[in-house]
């Protein structure tokens, strides 16, 4: 060991700030929330009443079911739409134009999220662009009921997550060494078989990371369902916000939040294989 070996203190000095921040502003609030979820508003004794309320009230657990249905639908559609797009950007667009193509795909998301959601509401309205195009071209007899429905919520979500998944899958595709493809070709595989048996499995990590992010971000999002769903059904974040905003019932809100986190944790365990943060 030479004279400049760091003491035992240095490594801890480096990681402690981040750890401390996470402990104080993430773990501690979480513990506070968990404790609160075991109280009744104004009550002192610990009780499972809030959780019981959730499981016995159909309007409440229906919100979780709705959230899962919407989120899974969004994830699947976004992956199916994004993969070919990422492929086109990574394989078919000439390399010098690829960064431009990516930036163009991401650019629209630099408008405000809230305003963009309201724009979707207008686009999907009775006399909005989509319906005008459909009725004008004769594809539909009457304007479709698009805005203020689950369809609108799904469209709003897919809009964002197609972009996100395109990025993760694109990154994965670019990372693939061309030797895989060459090897497959050398062994006599045609383009379809190469894709199905070689490329697709190798890009699975990119898909799973993107899908997991989509799941987590979508299931916890308040704005899109609130603006585009027309309150025709409630998803979990809306239910939680209702407790905070309208009723000041933080214990119940906390219980709902913990239930939501439990669901996300299950999803994480399912995807854990592909989500390890490995060093280069």
């Amino acid at each position, binding site marked *: 060991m030479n004279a400049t070996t760091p003491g035992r203190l240095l490594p801890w000095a480096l990681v402690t700030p981040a750890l401390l921040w996470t402990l104080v502003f993430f773990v501690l609030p979480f513990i506070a929330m968990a404790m609160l979820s075991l109280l009744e508003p104004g009550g002192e004794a610990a009780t499972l009443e809030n959780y019981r309320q959730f499981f016995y009230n*159909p*309007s409440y657990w229906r919100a979780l079911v709705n959230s899962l249905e919407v989120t899974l639908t969004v994830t699947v559609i976004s992956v199916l739409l994004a993969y070919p797009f990422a492929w086109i950007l990574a394989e078919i667009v000439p390399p010098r134009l690829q960064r431009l193509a990516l930036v163009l795909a991401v650019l629209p998301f630099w408008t405000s999220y809230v305003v963009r959601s309201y724009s979707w509401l207008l686009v999907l309205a009775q006399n909005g662009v989509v319906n005008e195009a459909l009725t004008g071209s004769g594809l539909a007899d009457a304007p479709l009921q698009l805005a203020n429905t689950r369809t609108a919520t799904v469209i709003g979500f897919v809009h964002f997550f197609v972009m996100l998944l395109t990025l993760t899958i694109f990154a994965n595709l670019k990372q693939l060494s061309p030797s895989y493809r060459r090897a497959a070709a050398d062994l006599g595989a045609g383009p379809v078989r190469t894709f199905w048996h070689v490329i697709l499995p190798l890009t699975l990590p990119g898909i799973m990371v993107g899908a997991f992010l989509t799941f987590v971000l979508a299931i916890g999002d308040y704005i899109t369902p609130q603006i585009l769903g027309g309150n*025709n059904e409630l998803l979990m974040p809306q*239910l939680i916000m209702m407790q905070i905003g309208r009723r*000041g019932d933080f214990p119940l809100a906390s219980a709902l939040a913990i239930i939501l986190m439990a669901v996300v944790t299950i999803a994480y365990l399912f995807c854990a294989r592909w989500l390890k943060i490995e060093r280069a």
Partner: protein
Amino acid sequence: MKSVLTKHLRASAAAAAALAILAAQPALAQELNALIWCDHADPALLQPFEEANGVKVNVKEFEGTGAGLALVEQSQPGDWDVMVIDSIDVPRGVEKGLFEPLPEDQLPFADLFPEVKMDGSTVVDGKRYGITEKFGYNTIGFNNTKVDVADMQSMASLIDPKYKGRIAIYDYYLPVMGMAALSLGKKTADLTEADLPAIRDVLMKMKANAKLVGEVTASQTALATGEVDILVGGGEWVTAGLAKENPALDFSIPKEGAVLWSQALAMFKDSKNKDLALKFIQYIVSPDGQARLATSSCYWGMPANSKAALTDEQKKTLRFDEQPEFLARAQAYPAPDADLDKKMQDVWTEMLQAQ
């Protein structure tokens, strides 16, 4: 390499300077903190007061008494000076020890429309805690070129399959459930838990006809853009402000009656600016303030002060002269106790989730 380091240092220095500027910004003139419904955010309303007194009015908007009280609970004492609260809910704030009694002799109580003075709720234990500043109706708002106006004289048309998919419901449980009660012939002041199943039925039927359930903006937009033709819980607060651009928007008081909404101003007991708060309240209920409040950009409504300085055209839009007749047929919001309130909100949630 060094240039990268200095680049970092320069960035941090700039950030630190920005933080210093932010922190060192001298507290400007005196500030008034107000918890309000969105109609009090209009600069046309606030600026004359700010300029006349050399102060700044900070506002935080909320919708629904529950939300407002929740905001207060999340704050520290002294955070707020005045609050806009439904007249009928003033006792709730008094119960929580939030409000300061108002001086009867320094406010124009004699000029208020008698039906909206609401002594029953703004006076608690002989002391007055709130003064009504604005009122209107949660009733049936509609586009008179798209619906049969005769149908709008009865609430039965709201649950008529004829209007399926053409209705929006205003997302506030108290007035809409009050309307449901009226349609069943019950009085809003006498609601009990036993009435809930019947009210629930009416709500479910309305939801089946509804395209969306929305708050102030969503409801206004839906009616204005033609997404829906009828707004349950709508009234002049939706139609009057849009009257210039869309004169087809109107409202009716059906034969079953309508629900009367009335906003009051209250002062916080822990306020650090009680004199300024009183001045603000006096300004709002003065003829000039009343005229501006009545025609505020978020939603219009009737000024509580009958001497409000409105133009003839504005009075016509608000149907100023028909008010006595309307008031005779309107009932106040339901004022449930905590237990009934929770059950009512549960019914509302059930309605929102219903397919």
